[in-house]
């Protein structure tokens, strides 16, 4: 069996015995800087803007909803089942479908609508990153198939950076099969190093931080 063969070859190469213990791996110190919430949010949004994303700091959920409606401009959208979106009243906006629980139906709609609307589990200020864990509240394809992605996130979820995320979520695999970190619109420079956005994920992203 290949498994036994490979493990045996590895052990022989390393001069280790089966079941032999190991030393502790070198420690990795996660640094969580003290940054006040306002600075965190401001940094988050400025990083997103630097990547050609659009942003809004919304003082209330109403403003978040109004902005979303403006961006939608009557176009079709799929919104995730995130409770926060419901609280902001985004599911009720014209053109928005939400409440999908069937993967086939979800995929079919995501493949044709203009906009995908989600919340996010966390945001990372120092890189302008959205962190999304797949689950009942957030499906994968909503932030991926439609050419426009709007993320509406409460300010409290904005962390300082990757180190803080890994402090809070040290074992993502225990919570979800998919944790995705999204930093700006999809892009490629594969032809003559010329930058083109929107291949294959959304080419336009909006990040709204509420509160």
């Amino acid at each position, binding site marked *: 069996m*290949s498994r036994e063969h490979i493990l045996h070859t590895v052990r022989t190469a390393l001069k*280790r015995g089966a079941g032999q213990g190991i*030393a502790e791996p070198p420690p*990795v110190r996660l640094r969580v800087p003290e940054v006040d919430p306002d600075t965190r949010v401001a940094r988050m949004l400025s990083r997103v803007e630097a990547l050609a994303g659009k942003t809004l700091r919304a003082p209330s959920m109403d403003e978040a909803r109004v902005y979303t409606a403006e961006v939608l401009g009557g176009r079709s959208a799929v919104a995730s089942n995130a409770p926060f979106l419901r609280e902001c009243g985004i599911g009720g906006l014209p053109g928005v479908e939400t409440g999908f629980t069937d993967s086939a139906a979800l995929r079919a709609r995501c493949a044709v609508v203009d906009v995908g609307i989600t919340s996010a589990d966390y945001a990372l200020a120092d890189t302008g990153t959205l962190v999304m864990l797949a*689950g009942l509240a957030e499906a994968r394809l909503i932030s991926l198939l439609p050419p426009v992605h709007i993320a509406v996130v409460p300010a409290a979820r904005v962390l300082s950076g*990757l180190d803080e995320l890994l402090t809070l979520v040290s074992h993502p695999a225990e919570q979800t099969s998919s944790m*995705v970190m999204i930093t700006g619109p999809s892009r490629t420079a594969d*032809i003559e190093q010329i930058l083109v956005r929107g291949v294959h994920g959304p080419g336009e992203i909006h990040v709204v931080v509420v509160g």
Partner: protein
Amino acid sequence: MSATFDRKVHNTLADANLQLAIYRATGRLIDHRKQAVTPEALPEYQELRAQANALKRHTIDHLDHYLERFEANVTAHGGKVVWCRNATEVADFVLGLAKERQARLIVKSKSMTTEEIDLNERLEHHHLQSVETDLGEYILQLAHQRPYHIVAPALHLTRYEVGDLFARTLGVANETVVEKQTMIARAVLREKFLAADVGITGANFLVADSGAVVLVENEGNARLTTSAPRIHIAVAGIEKLIPRAQDLAVFLKLLGRSATGQAMTVYTSFLSGPRRGDEIDGPEEFYVVLLDNGRTRLLADSGKRESLYCIRCGACLNHCPVYRKIGGHSFPWVYSGPIGAIITPQFMGVKFEPSLPFASSLCGACAEVCPVKIDIPKVLLDLRAEVKQDERCSGVNRLERLAFKVWAWVMCHPRVYEIAAVVAAGMAPAEGRAWLRKVPTPMNLPPVKAWLSQRDLPPAPARSFREMWRRR
């Protein structure tokens, strides 16, 4: 030096447009990386490199332990690990699974490992359609070419070549605006993503404590490959392991910055199995193929084992003055640049391309930028010693071997050295101000000829230093 290598090198050097394309593309990546690792941008850069090296050393030195832990965690989350010794076993697994599931269309995201094992060719041979979805790789697939660079696979192609290619293979009008070409590919590939039965990826990292596959990208094709089809297969070399999820705090900060100057790539996916109960979408089946294909051989050589630490960022390629002249296609295997130069002889044997370890001036630019601190020049020197040992055993290159033996003897006998020097100087044209374009026939030995093919020789001075010193 092998004739094939020399020919490819010569053709690349002679192509002025290609030279410019390579130099510009790598130059841009050099600048981007530089900005991303300044003390202002990343004050802990050197510390992270040291940590990354230590983490890789620890993992590789205990690889059996981490392989088993990884497998246990993949299994615990509903996935399956498939152990493959070589390319054939991988192809057999994929083909077998495809047959069982009646799968016909596969979408693939960029993976050097799958290039290494010619996976697409093997699948296509059995009438499975396997479509590359990274734009650069898709273009290369249509053109039947190998990647030119780890991170920028199609850097050698112009927009006109891409326009012609699309017109010829996709039946579209010849479009030369890059944005439009990209949208053509997007439309074609979108259909494939949504129709595919299987998604195959590589893995940037395998996380042992989570049974997870980490994928970094900018386009979104890896996300689509792992979210739309009902089966996800990740193919990864056994060396891709890291111990814990938190180790990504070290590796993710280094990978994007070293490769393209990005603090974070657009998408980073941490995938640990098929979709779970309450998840709405995602694959129903999740497989991780752990590939040996010769890695255990590298593992056994403790002096060169660090070659396995590579995280495939491409920084060494960008900074290598030799790569910047000869490009990716001069290299005989899928891996090019300094990393290619050290692992190719180890995977394929030194005889596969004996020139490779010598195709370097040992300038050290690669080692300076390697995020995991692989001492590439040291490994090159070790490989050179191995090549010469091999030549000694097989009795080839006798003249060079003899020349160095004589040289060493002379260098150990100072009075002989002085006499030899006087004799050589006597043969050489007398000191004038001009450097020499050619030399008299007795002096025109192969190394002298080789030197003169590119530049002039210094004239021998009237007196050597030691002679002048004695007269002081």
